[in-house]
């Protein structure tokens, strides 16, 4: 929801990045205020995921220009773990499997780390178990997933739900959800979207990186940005998403060139 006077959570100006020597982002600018829902859409290879990962601090992405601040702090000169502790969350497009590490253990570790950073109390394994089961119920996740290794053998949809479970546990100020809708059937999509909606409030914000308009029926964006060739080439309201759905992406690029 757009609220006048809401504080700026993320301010990105002219961000450029290289990956393996190839320039992917070529000057991206974006401002996200508390309470807002943004969607970044665009064809494959436009740089949507790169943008999310670069802001989260992925070591493979070299910042070659521009600035980014998160809740008033310079984001680009702090390591990935500090960005997370400061309240930045990335829901991965392809969450990694970690055999040998129980999901419960991993989730508790992540939770306690962020709680610690906020000066709040940590939870012991028993306390955490109650706490996480409550959150899992809201996402209609089988508690059996707690005992399995992190993401190991999870279906695509189950991995995505595990990401949203982490978002629910960590309560970030700003969450980037990278193609969270891919691989989800209608029911799973509904559950995940409800989960995300429940987490959005006046003090935090969400950026949905998505290829398809489908999820935006459930999580209604305030702003829709179209990315192409490493830049944001158009910004509009939620109707833009519907136009993209019926007309594709080509017309946006042509319009941008003509302008």
């Amino acid at each position, binding site marked *: 929801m757009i609220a006048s006077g809401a504080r700026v959570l993320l301010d990105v100006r002219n961000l450029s990045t290289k990956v393996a020597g190839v320039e992917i982002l070529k000057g991206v600018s974006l401002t996200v205020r508390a309470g807002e829902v943004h969607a970044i859409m665009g064809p494959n290879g436009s740089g949507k995921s790169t943008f999310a990962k670069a802001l989260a601090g992925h070591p493979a992405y070299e910042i070659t220009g521009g600035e980014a601040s998160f809740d008033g702090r310079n984001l680009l000169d702090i*390591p990935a*773990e500090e960005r997370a502790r400061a309240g930045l969350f990335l829901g991965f497009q392809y969450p*990694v499997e970690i*055999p*040998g590490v129980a999901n419960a253990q*991993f989730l508790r570790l992540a939770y306690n*780390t962020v709680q610690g950073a906020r000066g709040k109390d940590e939870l012991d394994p028993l306390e955490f178990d109650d706490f996480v089961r409550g959150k899992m119920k809201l996402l209609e996740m089988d508690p059996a997933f707690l005992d399995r*290794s992190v993401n190991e053998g999870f279906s695509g949809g189950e991995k995505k739900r595990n990401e949203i479970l982490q978002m629910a546990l960590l309560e970030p100020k700003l969450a980037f959800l990278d193609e969270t809708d891919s691989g989800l059937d209608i029911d799973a999509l509904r559950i995940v979207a409800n989960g995300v909606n429940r987490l959005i409030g006046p003090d935090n914000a969400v950026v949905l990186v998505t290829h398809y308009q489908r999820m935006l029926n459930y999580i209604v964006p305030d702003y829709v940005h179209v990315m192409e060739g490493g830049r944001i080439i158009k910004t509009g309201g939620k109707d833009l998403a519907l136009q993209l759905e019926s007309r594709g992406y080509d017309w946006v690029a042509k319009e941008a060139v003509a302008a």
Partner: protein
Amino acid sequence: MSAAATHPWLENLLAGRPELPAQPQAWLSRLRAQALERANSLTLPTLRDEDWRFTDLAPLYALALQPAAPAAGAVGMGLEPVIAPEAPARVVFVDGQFVPALSSTRLEGVTVTTLGAALEAHGHLIESHIAQHAAFRDDAFRAINTAHLSDGALVVAPGDAAGSTPIQLVFATTQAGVAVQPRCLIVAAAGSEVTVLEDYVGLHGGVYCVNAVTEIAVGRNAHVRHIRRQQESPAAFHIATCAVRLERDASYKSVSVAVGARLSRYNLNVLQAGEGIHCQIDGLALLNERQLADTHSFVDHARPHGTSRQLHKCVAGGHAHAVFNGRILVRPGAQRTDSSQSSRNLLLSRRAHVDTKPQLEIFADDVKCAHGATVGQLEAEELFYLQSRGMSEPAARALLTYGFAAEVVDRIPIRSVVDALHRAVLKETQATL
């Protein structure tokens, strides 16, 4: 009576052979004499031998080792962490001596005792198995061990033994500068089930050598689970053979973990001497500083319809060196053999290294033999995933390394052992930071 030995290290070692009791069983005297003769005839392995080409024994041969002195006073201080509370029966040897005070050989239905105590009552049984499975003809260390044979652990499970209750065999060393020759014989009668935990532990930081031989005879349709922990002192040398023979429809599942010793070598030989046999042999080596751990496994598919599975993992940090050689033989006629072997290795530092080699000898044509090996470091994507959840890089490395090792540790069916190993793994991974 000893023949002249050609190698000073060997000569010194053999000079310390224990006396046999007053009325030695004739077969045992003969066996020791044969083993002595072989020990003197064989040359000790060096880097020039194919089977030892990555494992340099020169530092061992430079040591003048003494036989262990008889224990004086209270023994077993420091053994607490090794004792598994789940095991109601336990045989404990300290510095080569059986310690009744620390042992408990009462277990309903299963004979848990020492070779020395059982020689009269079970002489025939022992004679029919000892040195039959772990042949010493071509192996100097097995010959040396057999030449020293006077006592050891004996487990005999009768046919109706139902065995998830573990039996623990502990060989602890408290003296420095000594050589000890532990020996175990485990006989699982047809239809029995038995679980054995075999522990080797050093209770001081000094140098010593353990040269161990274990033989396991698994009868028809018997099922043996075997957990082996090697936690010798960091300066110690540990050389061991475990030879397993399985009859038809039997199974052998083992997990061996090597954490200690400056240099360790584990030979695990499994003979599938009947049809329809299953074996699963998993291993884990956790190495740091300048440790070397060498595992040479051998699964002999002698008959048809056998399956074998092996997951061998090594974590090497510091300047450590992990060696793995996984030999599989599928004999002519061993049709429908289904074998798979996986060697997975994690390097935590630039100086650590791994030598891994599958060795497949396949002489039947209707078989499945899969094998694979990986050597790598922690993946950047995995590290980043954990860092994106607020974990520092060192903490992320430690957690991923723990996860890597845990896959093998979690296959151990004894809770206290799993917990102790989890703690050891965490400690190791933090040590490499």
